[in-house]
């Protein structure tokens, strides 16, 4: 899969046998990586594949094991000597996943925090110089804003672009150095992702070399010239994206074909409605009506900010409902708090695993039984042995891989943490399970297991309402998908579903 032509083009970055071990485990095992000048090179892989480690070594914030070599921008050194200063001198510029931008400050101030404020006598900031410099940069990078606009007033995509400009501002010629972007689209809503990708293609066309790290395969395929796939710390392959399909790419990442990632959808659907929502109003929701049937996976497709997360929270009693009616199993249902919702058999897996679901320093066992401790307290005694038994059963039933249930949950990988959160609810056999982005930040293998678990639950009679940004995923995982737009359900589509149809339904201008 290498091409002779490529050999002629200069390399902007060359890495040889890069390794890194964390407490005895090789997180990165002899990575060789060549990034050609002027190309967009995507670095792909699941959780724990080593791509974050590789980026951290390149940035000089993590020290590599001896034996590797890094060469960029005329600087070459042994990998274990690589430092932030060296990385900077070699022209490597990094924009991290959550770039440190400050929404309250102006664009000019945000840029100056990277480059330094221009100062006059007495360290006085020369605002006029700063604003002129910022205006030039904004124009060069085609951002329609004035230097004194607070960053928070910009769209998410423009905030990301400002972070990129900040990384690049001290370099006038674009044809040297490498811009390294770590998950640049993770926080962007759908349409803005495309805008950012378009901008990146523009930078590349102007000669900028970009190393692009992402979870999102479709993006990598659409924006990158070549991709390097990592699995378990090793490089699987470097391939041209021309003619490469998403299925082939997934196969490289996981090591097996995509058809086997999603379990088959339910064969027969019950007509019996478990949950009915009528005219739900609150926050961005302006009268949502839908019903979830027994044993089905009902998807909610909507953009970020469409109110999809609020809808789930409302059903769980964690978001105020101003008007509307909920019916659960034919009975009126109006949860004032999560505990009331739980008592009615409703479960909820929130979008932000770290902020809203995990008790990081607590053990796996306590995380699994969180909120259920009352079940183990009988006649003034806590039934620890029963809890232990239940825990080990849950760990095997819900495919959690943990060395011990006494370990802190934060020592698990992202996918296993998510399975712990899921297991916390599934072990209670809920009537209705609300899932908000259950596979976010989870590698392809764990994703497939999570969908297996969901299907196993629906087969046992649980109904699922699933919110996911990845429309491909919704199309594969759901029996039906409701489209949420402008605070209302604008369409409900059934299997056979396809992502293109959903993309159109979600993105077309509001008709309702």
């Amino acid at each position, binding site marked *: 899969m290498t091409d002779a032509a490529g050999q002629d083009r200069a390399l902007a970055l060359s890495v040889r046998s890069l390794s890194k071990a964390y407490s005895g485990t090789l997180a990165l095992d002899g990575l060789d990586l060549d990034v050609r000048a002027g190309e967009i090179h995507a670095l792909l892989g699941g959780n724990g594949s080593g791509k974050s480690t590789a980026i951290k070594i390149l940035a000089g914030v993590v020290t590599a094991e001896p034996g590797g070599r890094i060469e960029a921008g005329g600087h070459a050194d042994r990998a274990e000597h690589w430092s932030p200063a060296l990385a900077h001198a070699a022209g490597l510029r990094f924009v991290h996943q959550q770039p440190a931008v400050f929404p309250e400050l102006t664009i000019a101030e945000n840029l100056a925090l990277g480059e330094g404020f221009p100062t006059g006598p007495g360290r006085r900031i020369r605002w006029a110089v700063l604003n002129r410099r910022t205006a030039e940069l904004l124009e060069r990078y085609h951002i329609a804003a004035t230097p004194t606009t607070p960053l928070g007033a910009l769209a998410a995509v423009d905030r990301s672009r400002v972070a990129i400009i900040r990384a690049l501002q001290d370099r006038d010629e674009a044809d040297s150095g490498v811009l390294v972007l*770590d998950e640049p689209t993770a926080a962007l809503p759908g349409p803005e992702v495309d805008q950012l990708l378009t901008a990146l293609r523009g930078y590349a066309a102007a000669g900028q070399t970009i190393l692009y790290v992402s979870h999102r395969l479709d993006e990598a395929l659409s924006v990158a010239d070549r991709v390097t796939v990592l699995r378990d710390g090793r490089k699987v392959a470097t391939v041209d994206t021309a003619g490469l399909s998403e299925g082939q790419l997934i196969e490289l990442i996981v090591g097996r074909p995509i058809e086997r990632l999603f379990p088959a959808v339910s064969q027969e659907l019950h007509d019996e409605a478990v949950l009915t929502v009528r005219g739900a109003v609150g926050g961005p929701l302006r009268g949502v009506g839908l019903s979830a049937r027994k044993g089905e996976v009902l998807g909610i497709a909507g953009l970020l900010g469409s109110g999809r997360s609020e809808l789930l929270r409302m059903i769980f009693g964690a978001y105020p409902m101003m008007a509307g009616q909920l019916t659960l199993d034919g009975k009126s249902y109006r949860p004032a708090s999560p505990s009331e919702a739980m008592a009615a058999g409703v479960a909820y897996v929130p979008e932000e695993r770290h902020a809203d*679901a995990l008790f990081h320093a607590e053990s796996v066992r306590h995380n699994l039984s969180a909120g259920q401790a009352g079940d183990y307290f009988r006649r003034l005694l806590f039934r620890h042995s029963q809890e232990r038994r239940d825990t080990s059963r849950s760990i095997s039933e819900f495919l959690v891989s943990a060395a011990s249930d006494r370990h802190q949950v934060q020592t698990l990988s992202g996918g296993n943490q998510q399975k712990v959160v899921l297991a916390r609810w599934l072990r209670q056999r809920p009537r209705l399970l609300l899932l908000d982005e259950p596979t976010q930040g989870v590698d392809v293998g764990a994703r497939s297991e999570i969908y297996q678990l969901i299907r196993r639950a629906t087969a046992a009679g649980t109904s699922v309402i699933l919110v996911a940004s990845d429309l491909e995923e919704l199309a594969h995982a759901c029996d039906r998908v409701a489209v949420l737009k402008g605070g209302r359900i604008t369409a409900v589509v059934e299997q056979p579903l396809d992502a293109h149809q959903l993309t159109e339904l979600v993105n077309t201008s509001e008709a309702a």
Partner: protein
Amino acid sequence: MTPDTTDSGVAGSGPAGGAAASDGAAVTGSAAVTGSAVAGGGAVAGGSNPASGGVPGGGAATGGVAAAGQGAAARPGGGGTMGLARRRATSILQRYSLVALLGISIGVYGVWGKTSSVFLSAPDFRNIASSQAVLVVLTLGLIIPMISGSLDLSIGNAAGLSSVATAAFYAHGHVPLLVGALLGVLVGAIVGIVNGLLVVLLKVDSFIITLGTASAIFGIVIWYTGGQSIVLGIPQSLLSFGGGNVIGIPDSVYVVIVVALLVWYLLEQTPFGRSLHAVGSNKAAARLVGIRVERVTFAAFVLSGAFAGLAGVLLLASSGAGNPQIGQNFTLTAVAAAFLGAASFKVGRLNVLGSIVAILFLAVNITGLTFAGVADWINQLFTGVALVVAIAFATALHRERRPRARSTAQDSP
């Protein structure tokens, strides 16, 4: 990690060589350890700074400790059997380092010429044990809100208020012994109710709220007493309880044992204890698993207040007077003991046994140094150093374990 603590522990006792006659016992013989502290409100404010400076925010400080640590938790998938065995060994070392330090301290003072004659005598052990009862009850009450991520800096003053109020109930209300004691607990609980309501309703950091209520309580006590101790009218039965013993063990030690069992049961054996840990670990997540976060926080403050009230009654029994000045001196020591205690047994978690060992460690050293002739400033110096070392220790443990956790976190957007 462990040698660090040892070093600092010794560093703290360094000035021991300096002579100076000690006559710090302000109230009774038993006060040589805790009651001798003189500093006023400054002790509370000055003492809290290291806590908030080490890890920002009161809640964050306790969270840090809750998160810091279990060295025991080996990382799954990391290292071979060698690494695992080594980690297990370090974890045992961590777990019992404070116990070892306590043993070493006792040994040193037992052998040291200046202190050995008094130190190994049974009356002195009894003295340490009974004089620490107030502090143990306060600290065990304190760890309840600390586990839930809040800090109660008003406990010392609440105990002071309770001892003065109980003395007044006896002196002016002529209530029976047990009724007076219960009223003392109730006074503490009321302070806890006020703290809890303020923290829950105003949604302000408990650190600030209780710093404020602590000062306000002190003001009320001084206003009521005019700064004078209430000495007359305390029932003889209470006073003899303070000095009495059964089979050679001071009465107050029995109270401590009951309180310790109660708090242990509450924290480790009830769903409420689980809720406290959950709220302390992640409030938003706790709410989303059906835990009523506000209710738990409120209850934690009421409990710490009630225990402070009980401590106040014990204080009255042991000192024989409702002294408006001494209550607040306990706050910082209790905070220090709680943090130190989190570094042993269940490493990284505030726990009952660890807190008690920490208090004994502080008491043995302070008593020992006092006997050795160091002036009573050693009390504040030693406690302050111990607090800072304990927090540094917890934070270091926390950091040591971070890189891996962070790399997993970064892999997932």
